[in-house]
């Protein structure tokens, strides 16, 4: 399984970014190979509008099956749902912590966006 986690850093010890569409980066972790790659989100970070939509599309293109972020707005949620990607809202401090919580089954997928757009 591939898990995309929003982060402001570059490795597993980096902080979780609570924003989805305007997160600095996505760390995409492969639970089988225990390897990860970094997807830059700078373009959407500075977008005038529709950041969540494009970020979700880029995450879907990585083949991720799940997303962990602090929050997820309605438009991004709609794209992720259409792509069959489960969304987990989480308050973990680091990327590693968030992945551990998911793997241990301690967080549940969200059934809907947990914030309004532009929160």
């Amino acid at each position, binding site marked *: 399984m591939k898990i995309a986690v929003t982060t402001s850093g570059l490795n597993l010890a980096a902080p979780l970014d609570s924003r989805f569409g305007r997160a600095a980066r996505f760390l995409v972790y492969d639970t089988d190979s225990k390897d990860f790659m970094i997807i830059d989100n700078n373009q*959407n970070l500075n977008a005038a*509008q*529709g950041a969540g*939509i*494009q970020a979700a599309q880029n995450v*879907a293109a990585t083949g991720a099956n799940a997303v962990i972020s602090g929050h997820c707005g309605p438009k991004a949620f*709609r*794209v992720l749902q*259409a792509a069959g990607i489960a969304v987990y809202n989480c308050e973990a401090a680091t990327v590693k912590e968030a992945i551990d919580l998911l793997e241990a089954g301690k967080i549940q997928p969200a059934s809907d966006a947990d914030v309004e757009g532009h929160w």
Partner: protein
Amino acid sequence: MKIAIASGKGGTGKTTVAVNLAWYLADRSRKVQYIDCDVEEPNGHFFLSPYLNEKADACVMVPVVDQQKCSSCGECVKKCQFNAIARLPGNTLIFPELCHGCGLCVLVCPNKALSEGERTIGYVETGMGWGGVQFAHGVLNVGEPMPNPLIRQVKHRGLEDHVCIIDAPPGTSCPFVETISDADLVILVTEPTPFGLHDLKISVDVALARGKQICVVVNRENGPFTPLNEYLAVNKLKVLARLPEDRRVAEAYSTGEILVQAMPEYAVHFEAIADAVIGMMNNCSREVRP
């Protein structure tokens, strides 16, 4: 002739000036149309009490995807400047609330999978108001983020052989620019306060950048406000009228009365504005027919 009444700052008296100027010109046997482009909160109808005999939906173009024809090539996503399209394998999603209706996606789709659909953003109403003033306004649906397409459709109802008094929305961004875009004259209504002056300066800069002729009406004047008068003098802005502050003006406004009817002593100010406007109209027509 098209005259836009604008201000930058809200609540300076745009609608008061626009409605009374329209009513005054009609009372002087001019063919007048009042056009309310403040589509987010139109309120000219409270004063002109029009009999509205025509209502039409205002629509914008939104792309519609034929998923059977779509190859998920992503060309539309790349070209969309508004991030309104998302591409997933076998599924292209459109977000109409972000779409500006430019139609580029429909043009660039190599598979002709996108076609032009419609989305209603509000409506336009027209009719006849008090004193024989022709009336048109637009009403934007609540929550709709883009007023400009509706403003264009309201202005489209402008009557060629009438003096069109266009009531502009407050602010100095896109809706303001759209509203004044084809005006022959922009009358900026300001008030003698630091806020009024601050926003007047921005409005003047924007209107000048659009190549507009500008005049000013100072509303709610209560003694001299030196910074405003200095600014007007330095920038050689013509002041058409200075309306004195009076609590009774606000009282008449609050009950939807036409000011020059409720307080005839204010007619002299609208006469001054009307004379200036008519003078410019005559100049314009002389330029057209030398």
